């Protein structure tokens, strides 16, 4: 248990799922104190490979060696014993338990007969958190913590359980830019004591952090080498198989009419306080307004309020001159609102429905797809086939359950549905969160295309690159109100970062 992991090797790993070759003869090795970046698009097989390493899945072929000795993990507990620890992309924390209790789940030393020594666990948590500079409150419940805090808890948990080799599955995908920078600094420090494999498709992070890079495409290694020898764009090209240049909004102002005007809006959060607190905002036709802000500052509540999903306490939402405040979602949809929600699996699709069914969720009683409420099978099928081709949705067929698709493809399903309904306006909430470069490029192009057609778009995002590339105007939201509105050219990453942190212009001068 106390032995260091000097080297870890995976050789010729192959794993088949029904109909898919998830890992195809993959080999990689990591030495002590190294950081290896495992890079690839969504669905390239990165997570599967790491689940095999952790004993969660069993490989069909291939072998794993630690310090030159072959190991076989039958379950995650065997991998823990060997000193491996994984932070999953979807955090493995029980929400209604405290931090200490979550660590205790795996900390068998504290499992006394008839008694759980939570005091001992708490000491361990405090020891680890001070040693690695990971601030956590051992008595907080998980549901009370932000995503960034939860991730620190995951790291603390993994380290408490004695991990000397960390596997991080897309550690930054749900973090704010500030939290991402903190994490990168932290991991650089931790590298002195451990080896790390981290999965990512954000190339600047790969560049900043890793010593070596392994690129997967369709389950196979297409490249492996030293990170420092390659530029981000070279890695991106290897990852997707073609050059990627994210599109930018360089088009002239359309001077459209006001499409959406929100004035003095107050909306409560689930916990009862005003998450949207006197917000004013206008979006014109043919204009993309980027709503920049650290998540949790009222974006979610704002989007839900506009779409009729959350009651409005006070204020007006004028949509093409009509007040849609506190109207039903049906009413809002019928008046031409398109909505790409934040939780794509929960709000965007019905996961157990087929792709073709998800395409018509909002139009199931429309003449186009139903006659006297009986669904028209032929029209639904052909509609699905067209959308699948136009939006390059990669799936075995449109009869597949939408929930079985990768995040990028689910997002394309939602986008396809919302855009082809010919909306008069579009609200896109974190439309590219967790997606790979290829999918981001596609979605950005589609959004710009809609803008060119004269559609107003409210783009909620915390990716500053996305906001700055696409927006005509950038509104910064902080604590439920618009902090400031900048024009396309005025904003820099630094100025946006300062505004998003809630510091006004005066503080900027003092800086």
């Amino acid at each position, binding site marked *: 248990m106390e032995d260091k992991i000097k080297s870890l090797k995976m050789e010729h790993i192959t794993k088949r799922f029904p109909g898919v070759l998830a890992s195809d003869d993959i080999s990689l090795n990591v030495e002590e104190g190294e950081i290896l970046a495992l890079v690839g698009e969504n669905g390239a097989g990165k997570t599967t490979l790491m689940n095999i390493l952790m004993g*969660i899945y069993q490989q069909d072929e291939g072998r794993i060696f630690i310090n030159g000795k072959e190991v076989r993990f039958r379950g*995650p507990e065997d991998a823990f014993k060997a000193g491996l620890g994984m932070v999953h992309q*979807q955090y*493995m924390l*029980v929400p209604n338990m405290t931090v200490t209790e979550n660590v205790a*789940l795996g900390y068998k030393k504290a*499992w006394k007969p008839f008694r*759980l020594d*939570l005091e001992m666990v708490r000491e361990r948590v405090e020891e680890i958190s001070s040693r690695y500079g990971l601030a956590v409150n051992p008595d907080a419940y998980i549901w009370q913590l932000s995503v960034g805090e939860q991730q620190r808890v995951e790291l603390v948990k993994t380290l408490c359980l004695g991990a000397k080799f960390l596997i991080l599955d897309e550690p930054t995908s749900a973090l704010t830019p500030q939290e991402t920078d903190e994490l990168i600094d932290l991991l650089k420090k931790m590298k002195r004591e451990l080896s790390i494999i981290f999965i990512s498709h954000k190339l600047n992070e790969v560049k900043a952090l890793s010593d070596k890079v392994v690129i997967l495409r369709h389950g196979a290694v297409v490249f492996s080498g030293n990170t420092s020898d390659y530029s981000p764009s070279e890695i991106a090209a290897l990852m997707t198989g073609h050059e990627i240049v994210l599109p930018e909004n360089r088009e002239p102002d359309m001077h459209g009419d006001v499409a959406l005007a929100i004035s003095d809006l107050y909306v409560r959060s689930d916990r009862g306080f005003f998450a949207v607190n006197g917000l004013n905002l206008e979006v014109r036709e043919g204009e993309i307004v980027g709503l920049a802000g650290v998540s949790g500052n009222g974006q979610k509540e704002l989007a839900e309020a506009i779409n009729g999903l959350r009651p409005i306490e006070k204020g007006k939402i004028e949509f093409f001159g009509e007040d849609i405040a506190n109207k039903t979602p049906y009413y809002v949809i019928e008046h031409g609102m398109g909505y790409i929600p934040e939780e794509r699996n929960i709000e965007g699709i019905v996961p157990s429905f087929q792709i073709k069914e998800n395409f018509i969720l909002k139009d199931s009683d429309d003449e186009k797809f139903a006659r006297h409420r009986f669904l028209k099978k032929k029209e639904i099928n052909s509609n699905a086939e067209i959308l699948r081709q136009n939006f390059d949705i990669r799936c075995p067929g449109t009869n597949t359950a939408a929930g079985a698709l990768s995040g990028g493809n689910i997002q394309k399903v939602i986008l396809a549905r919302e855009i082809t309904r010919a909306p008069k306006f579009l609200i896109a909430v974190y439309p590219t969160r967790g997606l790979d470069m290829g999918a981001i490029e596609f979605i950005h192009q589609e959004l710009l295309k809609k803008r060119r057609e004269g559609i107003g778009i409210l783009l909620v995002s915390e990716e500053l690159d996305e906001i700055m590339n696409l927006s005509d105007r950038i509104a910064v939201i902080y604590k439920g109100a618009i902090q400031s509105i900048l024009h396309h050219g005025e904003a820099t990453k630094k100025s946006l970062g300062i505004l998003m942190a809630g510091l006004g212009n005066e503080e900027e001068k003092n800086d």
Partner: protein
Amino acid sequence: MNIIINILSMTVPFSVALLLASLGEMFNQRSGVFNLGCEGIMAMGAFVGMLIPFSIGGGGAVAAGWNYLGILLAAVVGALLGLFFGVVVVTFRAPQGIAGIGLQMFGVGTAGTLFRHFVGGTQSIPGLSSNPIPFLSDIPIVGRIFFSHNIIVYLAFLFVPVAWYILQKTSWGLEVRACGTYPRAADSMGINVNRIRYEALAVGGALAGLAGAYLSVCQIKMFSDELIAGRGFIAVALVYFGHWKPVRIMLGALLFSFTQTIQYNVQGLGINIPYEFFVMLPYVVVVVVLAFTSKNQTTSPAALGKPFNREIRT
């Protein structure tokens, strides 16, 4: 005054069967398994519990030890039925609601059939006599309400804090809670989710069996097909009522039993209200209270009713 004391002193022992069964159901649900078959396990427990003292004494008096043996065997049979339910819903991942109804019918039917085969017609037994606690039972009013019952009553109420301790302060309780809320996380920590669910089902089944035997050996002192009379389903409802917390479940069991004893007593008073109204009352109370307390349940086991399969993502 006398009638109130009468009602209260009946409330406590009458709540025990519900209390034991719903604490058992609480362990099931906390681990993520919804066991609607509680009623069936209770019926089997009631039958086994009364069969032992009946076979020994033939309906006459027996040494207390035979009653206890019957109650113990009822718990064992209950645990086995819990494990059997586990094979169906944990290993074979059958839909839990339907499988639970199946278990209920299986238990009630089997108990009734075996009863007719081994016992015959309705037979009463002397059952377990009460053991008033010395000194405490002499306290006026309070003594009669709380300390003049049989041993099972005291043990059942002592089990409330024990159940809380097990859930909150032992490693097993921690595992149970994790499996019921987020089994994937428990699995990633090396916890065998299915094993924990089997264990919780065994514990829950044993308590349900015990609850049944309490009815046949301690409370009603006989067995019949209608003995359980929906108490197993009320026990399931009480778990929701009590938000999966032992103390609140106890309060629910007491409230239900209180309204039920009102019914027994008021019927005798000859008040001019149809007695069906009072028979209905306890159930109405449960439905109304459930309707008003079902919001904001942060303790609810999020994975309740969902089978766990490591290689399938949901």
